[in-house]
């Protein structure tokens, strides 16, 4: 089979038994691609939550299909269960189009008008389920989710640290939180690797959407009334515009997606299941400032893009020092930490390494567009760099000195203040029960 020449992508079936969900897909008349998701120590689904569980599982099936659909991007999408209600179809059309926008840009594809989920079905009527007042907090091993965890802990909220897949880094961070933990396993269909070998399309998928759908199933299964991600304000900003289309690397972390999914869960799963981001009003800099106070995590966390599956004790075992995430977190933490402490976290001084100049230029949006990574807005990076350029202990470092002599003269200093970035904006969807935690982050 030539994946790129397929005609139809089919959502074949989904099932759940004894803690194991199976999600099946196929291209044309090809073999089934079956993804497996394992929920550890799963309780029986209570009867009153059965309908909600089925709705969440169906959504998971639809959203997780994005990993497979993108292998061939065929012109037609078929659903074995019949058409979707309008709201559901709209959610998926949007997710597939915007969530795959970077993928499309990189591969020179135009997905507009191509993604059409069959619609015309009817939506169910649902109500509240009286879910237990506790929160699933996804942990990613980086600073953001740890800030969210500590905020919930600070108001005495009941929470579980949850993550999907195997990661020694995340496991170490989750353990350090002191919260109960839940590790859900996801196994991609083995057939996908075969398609890759046969020349499938490849690229970025909206993985946060997939994880969100998995957690929605988990919330109903185990009984949680809220899922709080740690997506910050700048996740809503487009990375670039291409041929009239906004391309946002982290679209599934944006407020737009949060609103779509949150509303959908309220109307299709349970009126009392809240889905939100606790960091939504905050800039990256406000979050790094909050994180700078969380010393106990300094030797376990990492935001580095290089997916370290084997952890060593050294900073280089967690921070590659080369990727945009390493660059940004280094720069954003620098104004808020004593220099020796920051350098001890990374094991080296990225700002005194001329080889990293291009990477930091990209962050500053100097001679380059914003990289396709989950990093703050260029203006934030410039504000952080400007703050450092005023500090004698940083001034002489190679890239700070270069900023002062080469970049700063081209900038408007009035636009470089750090303080405005530390003010929260008003926009968020955090439910009343957790709003005190939201406030704690900015304190």
């Amino acid at each position, binding site marked *: 089979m030539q994946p790129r020449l397929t005609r139809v992508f089919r959502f074949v079936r989904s099932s759940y038994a004894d803690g194991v969900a199976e999600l099946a897909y196929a291209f044309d008349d090809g073999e089934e691609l079956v993804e497996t998701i394992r929920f550890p120590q799963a309780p029986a689904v209570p009867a009153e939550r059965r309908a909600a569980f089925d709705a969440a599982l169906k959504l998971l099936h639809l959203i997780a299909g994005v990993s497979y659909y993108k292998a061939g991007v065929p012109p037609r999408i078929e659903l074995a269960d019949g058409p979707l209600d309008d709201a559901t179809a709209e959610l998926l059309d949007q997710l597939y189009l915007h969530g795959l926008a970077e993928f499309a840009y990189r591969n020179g594809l135009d997905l507009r008008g191509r993604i059409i989920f069959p619609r015309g079905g009817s939506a169910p009527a649902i109500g509240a389920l009286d879910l237990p007042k506790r929160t699933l907090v996804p942990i990613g091993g980086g600073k953001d989710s740890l800030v969210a965890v500590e905020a919930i802990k600070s108001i005495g909220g009941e929470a579980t640290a949850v993550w999907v897949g195997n990661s020694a880094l995340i496991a170490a961070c989750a353990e350090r939180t002191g919260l109960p933990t839940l590790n859900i396993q996801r196994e991609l269909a083995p057939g996908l690797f075969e398609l890759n070998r046969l020349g499938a399309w490849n690229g970025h998928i909206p993985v946060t959407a997939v994880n969100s759908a998995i957690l929605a199933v988990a919330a109903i299964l185990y009984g949680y009334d809220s899922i709080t991600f740690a997506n910050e304000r700048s996740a809503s900003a487009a990375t670039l515009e291409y041929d009239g289309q906004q391309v946002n690397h982290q679209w599934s972390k944006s407020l737009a997606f949060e609103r779509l999914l949150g509303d959908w869960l309220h109307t299709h799963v349970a009126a009392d299941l809240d889905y939100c981001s606790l960091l939504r009003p905050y800039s990256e800099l406000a979050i790094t400032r909050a994180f700078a106070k969380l010393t106990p995590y300094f030797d376990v966390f990492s935001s580095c893009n290089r997916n370290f599956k084997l952890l060593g004790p050294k*900073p*280089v075992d967690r921070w590659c020092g080369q990727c945009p995430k390493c660059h940004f977190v280094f720069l954003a933490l620098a104004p808020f930490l004593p*220099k020796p402490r920051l350098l001890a976290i990374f094991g080296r001084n990225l700002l005194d390494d001329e080889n990293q100049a291009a990477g930091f230029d990209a962050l500053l949006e100097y001679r380059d567009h914003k990289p396709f990574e989950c990093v703050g807005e260029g203006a934030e990076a410039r504000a952080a760099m400007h703050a450092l350029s005023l500090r004698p202990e940083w001034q002489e470092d190679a890239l700070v000195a270069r900023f002062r002599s080469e970049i700063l003269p081209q900038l408007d200093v009035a636009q470089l203040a750090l303080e405005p970035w530390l003010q929260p904006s008003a926009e968020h969807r955090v439910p009343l029960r957790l709003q005190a935690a939201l406030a704690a982050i900015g304190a």
Partner: protein
Amino acid sequence: MKFGGTSVATLPRWQNIRELVASRRAEGARVLVVVSALTGITDALKQLCGEGGKDKRKAAAGAIAQRHYDLLEHMQLALPGTLGARLSDLAALAADGPAPRGELAWQAQVQALGELMSSALGAAFLSHSGLPTQWLDARECLAAVALPNQNERTRLLSAMVEAKPDPALNARLAALGEVFITQGFIAREQHGRTVLLGRGGSDTSAAYFGALLKAARVEIWTDVAGMFSANPRQVPGARLLQRLDYEEAQEIASTGAKVLHPRCLSPLREPRVPLLIKDTNHPELEGTVIGPEVRAHAPSVKAISARKGITLVSMESVGMWQQVGFLADVFAHFKTHGLSVDLIGSAETNVTVSLDPTENLLDSDAIAALASDLAKVCRVKVIAPCAAITLVGRGMRSLLHTLSGVLAEFGQLRVHLISQSSNNLNLTFVVDEEVVDALLPHLHDLLIGAGALRTDDSALFGPSWQMLYGGGEVVPAVPAWWRVAQRARLLELAAEATPRYVYHLPTVRQQARELKSLAAVDRLHYAVKANTHPAILRVLAAEGFAFECVSPGELDAVAAVVAESVPLLFTPNFAPRRDYVRALATRATVTLDALHPLQHWGELFRGREIVLRVDLGRGLGHHEKVRTGGSASKFGLPLDQLPAFLQLAETHGVAVRGLHAHLGSGVLDAGHWGEVYAQLASLAERIASVVFLNIGGGLGVPAHPGEASLDVAALDRALREVKAVYPQYQLWMEPGRYLVADAGVLLTRATQQKDKGGFRYLGVDTGMNSLIRPALYDAWHKIVNLSRLGEPATALYQVVGPICESGDVLGTDRRLQEAHEGDVILIAQAGAYGKVMSSHYNLRDEADEVVIDD
């Protein structure tokens, strides 16, 4: 004799102490035992001091008492009166809290109880087991002195004792008995209050008692046999230091060794009492003797250490030049901000100082505030995180000439500061912290290789840590094949003709089978550039090896010998287009390591599956010229060009099936391949088409005596660990030298000798034309006089060849038998990169090749 916390925590350990004391008694010595608190008790007492409430304190005291009751029960002893009294003290102190005595004095009294209790328990046990032992209160012997710079806290919690030989105490004890037990860590001050000696306190107590009593020796019994030539956690090959003088030992202790606190040596220096470090679990080991006598030894580096977390402050100004008081003003700022300066390096316009890691430095704004103040008078740069690498040894300056290889290593790094003290004991380099972990073992090897760390002197250096504690059994070295079994045969072959390479095929097979034991490796390739002799290719094909070639010539050589079904890899570097055309016409899998081939000859590769060689950005190996990673090396695609490469591959319909990296040669650290493997795997996760990872070769073959060979079992463990996480990728390797180096020797014959300015030159009938590795890489090959094996080796030769180059030296300073013209001189480990790199230079005949297979 001093015993630490773990040595006094269980009954078997106390039985051990009893035996050791009894053995000293049997030698006729009178024994004073100094003990720490039971392990964990001092911490528990400290924690008790921190508890706010009376009930919590009482509960903590109860738990501490219970530990001692439990041990008594194991010993089947009744509660001795001395211990009972201490336990009541503990209960009372816990109940009272700090108020009646004052916080610090109370803390000191509480914490002192740990040693008071353990020693009381020990006295009871030793006496009960037939060794009458007097319990001695250390506070009656050790009087703390008040020093002008002390405050109440340091006076009470980290006191100093002036310990001068005290014959009266000696006489008093002599009247009381033969065996005593007392407490480490505690003393009294002038008003009779209990004080503590601070960190390393028990060792220091033992040293104080040693000095007071002018003891025959102080023995520190611990869980390791002594000081080592490096931190064994960083350098498993570190060697036990059997003899040190006080100053050397103090320097080593101050720069990193944890086994002994540096302050416990100074009390012993004046009374010249030797200190012995011994391993409680291995009393048979010699341990480290630290004493006054400096016996006649060749100067040697004794140890290499690294301290991490160093911050440098570099200050640049023309203002300091010849200005009175400039530096005084600058240093005043350091004092103001509570930062203590360690190393200093200075030039006319720059002063750079190092700061040790302290909480003050890491968690306060001290550095920012300091930099602000300094910025007013000079340009400041804060450089961190750094590490100080220190070489320690008496007479360091006289060793400089041997350190050229070591210094060359530093030449490749950012060295921020070099410092050499006037006491001539150390040489310190401050470098970036990130390089240290890989650098240290490498430098240790280099120091041995350079003859700067004289591990050949068995009086100074004992076994390696690995050998003592590494867990594996020490396998006795099997004599090389040429030494006994094949010696007569080789002498016959040399009589026919020299120079001549001889290859021993059973050794090739043995090495091949060793590597085949690596369960994680799915395919092994022989890197044929090491030796293309057809007999060797045949042996390895029969052992199931695939082959890695770097040129069309090598492809032809392999094709001529091995079957059609054997897989081939073609891994050239900067090869012309026509080489790829040739290779693509064979079954070989082609490796690319640059953008150029796909940019300019992309259509050549359309529809092909290729391997991409990447440069992971660092190199390893025994010499600059064998390093193949890092920007200074011409090999591999730099990672920042990876996206461009993949884009080109996509454009030309090329599938990247494998990722390859190879960092260098002669690497002996098993963990290194695990790291390369994991790095490649994490890269491969972003490239959907990849199915195998080729982690290269470079498996080290030890050359120097005492160098540990590659631990194949450890390599297997390291690889399997990564494989468990990334089972989706096949693992390939391509060893070369490892398979064939030991299998080959170069036979030559002695030609002439010459004495010149203290050097003795021994000429042989071939040199760099046959074996260029010594000249090219400073490679060390063992050289023996095969004709005279077994005779005493009395001459020290520079072994040289007949080529008109001053670099035509095969070996320097070799201890050999007195040679005669015509003697057969064998050069070992010549099976790899020997014949294949030979030349006709000077139009000398090439060495021929002979194979033996039995």
